[in-house]
């Protein structure tokens, strides 16, 4: 493929993915409102555009499937056919064929997705009633918008979609860098203004400061996308799984307009799908069981997102059977993950969190959707990789809630600047639990390691001078200890002094600096200096 084509390929992939998502969403709505002609038109348009795009790019299989879908949809919207559950099911199936076909383009390998079956299925629908009308000769007519009358809200939605542009995240990072530089240079000009007592310069610089401030904010915003980007896929997931498990589930989504860093949104998809499947599969009981327990026949699952001071809180609630911390603990002992002695020390929440340990699964039987004992630990690891957290609330018989807290953005973090010898390092605030200072006689040595006792707890100490190959020094009057935490592990970092607290823009170190030990990245301070960020997980 020529270079030009490959550029269009990326565009096709991202657009096709979006179209598939919209198709899924609209089909789901259609399933609920089979009489809605407007929806049908929308679906038809989507399938038509998809076909057109694929044909231009020369993707034969996608074109063929989309074309057949379009034919069926056209019959439906001409009301020559009635929207029946079987037809919707087949259309869903067609989408399931299209998805791997699009993925095939991404990976560049031919996975030999079989389209014959779906084509036959779609043709079968066409042959219901008037088989003569099944000719695909409606090309020209289909090209024009079939229905000009749309509701106002639909119109608005459409407009918004057309007003967006796809940008490679690299460009955004570059923009971020340049804005940062602007801020630094502005600071230098301020200095000159102060040195030469130029009042007028300072005045206009104040103006410039405001502009750079808003500019930085805007650039940051461009990295954010609404969670609907992934949330919109979930109704389909719930529907399919509920059908498979013969369960009835009302699925509700709230706050899908909440925005998060694009990278987080992409990465959080798999963990969320896992949680949703868990809720549907294990959380919600069968209708018979529910009725027996005095609950409504249909289960209720709700996914919500909302902003909370610097964080986004995503909650998945179900009204299923809930979990019992004691049962979980017993299971953990059975699996040899825990001893009874240790168990006594655990709080209820800690017992619940045992399900996030690798190799844990409470499902009695292994189904093909969940219960393989992988999963919850992956969910936790992934969320924590973004400095987020997972907590569980549950009540036996009433249901469970999984709460995921995520930072708004990966690009900016709060951090504590510490001085070690003559160097300054940044420690992410999210890892810090407390800062203390001690006199040296508090230090004890256990197995050649220095420790300190805080509130009856032993905290191992680690000198950052040692980590970063700096000359060690005798402890002075006071020792400054920054307590950091990753998961359940805690460590006291000995630093020379605390410097400041700042909001920093993270830059990753690439190339030959990729494998630097104890360093997760770097940042540039207001004065242009480069400061390294301590990789807390790495030095634990």
């Amino acid at each position, binding site marked *: 493929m020529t270079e030009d084509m490959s550029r269009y390929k990326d565009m096709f992939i991202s657009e096709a993915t979006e179209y598939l998502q919209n198709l899924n969403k609209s089909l789901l709505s259609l399933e609920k409102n089979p009489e809605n002609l407007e929806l049908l038109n929308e679906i038809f348009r989507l399938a038509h555009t998809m076909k057109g795009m694929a044909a231009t790019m020369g993707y034969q299989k996608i074109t063929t499937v989309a074309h057949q879908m379009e034919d069926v949809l056209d019959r439906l919207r001409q009301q020559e056919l009635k929207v029946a559950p079987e037809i919707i099911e087949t259309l869903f199936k067609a989408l399931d064929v299209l998805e791997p076909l699009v993925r095939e383009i991404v990976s560049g390998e031919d996975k030999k997705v079989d389209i014959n079956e779906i084509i036959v299925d779609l043709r079968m629908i066409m042959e219901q009633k008037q088989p003569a009308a099944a000719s695909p000769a409606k090309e020209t007519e289909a090209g024009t918008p079939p229905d000009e009358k749309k509701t106002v809200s639909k119109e608005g939605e459409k407009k918004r979609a057309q007003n967006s542009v796809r940008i490679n995240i690299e460009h955004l990072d570059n923009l971020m860098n340049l804005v940062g530089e602007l801020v630094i240079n502005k600071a230098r000009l301020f200095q000159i203004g102060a040195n030469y007592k130029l009042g007028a310069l300072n005045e206009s610089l104040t103006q410039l400061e405001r502009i750079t401030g808003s500019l930085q904010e805007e650039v940051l915003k461009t990295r954010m996308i609404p969670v609907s980007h992934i949330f919109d896929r979930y109704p389909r997931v719930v529907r399919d799984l509920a059908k498979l498990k013969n369960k009835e589930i009302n699925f509700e989504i709230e706050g899908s307009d909440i925005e998060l860093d694009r990278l987080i949104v992409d990465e959080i998809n798999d963990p969320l799908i896992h949680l949703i499947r868990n809720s549907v599969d294990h959380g919600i009981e069968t209708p018979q069981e529910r009725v027996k327990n005095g609950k409504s026949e249909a289960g209720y699952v709700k996914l919500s997102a909302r902003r909370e001071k610097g964080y986004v809180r995503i909650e998945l609630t179900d009204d299923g059977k809930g979990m019992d911390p004691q049962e979980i603990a017993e299971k953990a002992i059975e699996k040899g993950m825990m001893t009874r002695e240790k168990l006594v020390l655990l709080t209820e929440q800690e017992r619940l969190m045992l399900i996030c340990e690798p190799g844990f699964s409470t499902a009695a039987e292994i189904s093909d959707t969940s219960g393989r004992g992988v999963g919850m630990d992956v969910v936790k690891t992934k969320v924590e990789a973004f400095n987020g957290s997972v907590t569980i609330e549950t009540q036996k018989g009433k249901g469970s809630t999984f709460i995921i807290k995520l930072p708004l953005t990966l690009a900016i973090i709060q951090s504590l600047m510490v001085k070690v010898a003559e160097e300054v390092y940044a420690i992410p605030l999210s890892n810090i639990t407390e800062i203390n200072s001690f006199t040296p006689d508090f230090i004890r040595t256990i197995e050649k390691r220095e420790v300190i006792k805080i509130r009856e707890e032993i905290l191992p100490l680690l000198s950052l001078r040692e980590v970063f190959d700096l000359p060690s020094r005798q402890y002075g009057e006071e020792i400054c200890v920054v307590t950091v935490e990753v998961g359940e592990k805690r460590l006291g970092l000995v630093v020379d002094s605390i410097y400041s607290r700042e909001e920093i823009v993270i830059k990753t170190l690439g190339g*030959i*600096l990729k494998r630097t030990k104890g360093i997760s990245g770097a940042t540039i301070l207001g004065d242009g*200096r480069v400061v390294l960020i301590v990789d807390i997980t790495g030095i634990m």
Partner: protein
Amino acid sequence: MIQEKKQEGTSQLVVFNLANEEYGVAIGQVQEIIRPQGTTRIPGMPSFIEGVINLRGKIIPIIDLRERFSLVKKESDARTRVVVAEVSSQTVGLVVDSVSEVLRLANEAIDPLPPTITDIDGEYLKGVGKLDRRLIILLDLEKVLTDLEKSTLEKINKTLAEETTSSGGAKKETAAKAE
């Protein structure tokens, strides 16, 4: 990057000095030349990596070429420059004694390297350019960089191995050796 229209059979070089010898690199690989600025040290790196600097919001590593080529150390002075090179999508700064000029060299004037011409490992030398009485050693920056990466990794792995040996007891030691 704007590429100069190539004249038939010539290459355009940026020429710099390092310990009384002249070196040349292809101009297409050089992004810019800057004066040295304060670097931030990166712990645990081999000594030829001086540290990192902020180049208009981008963090790039600074490599001391004298140190890398095992030449005598020299304090930076008014003529010291950093050649910022972009090779295989990586940007690095190379500290050199001074940058003298940009010149064109006919391809016929480039000879393959006589085996014993410099102290530097022959691998990243492309040849020697002759111009009047001057000899310009042509560096292949891509090779220099991949080699840097290799030796950096080696150094990091070595420290890691040492650490496990010193702290981890006999078991880990044998494991490290087995690798």
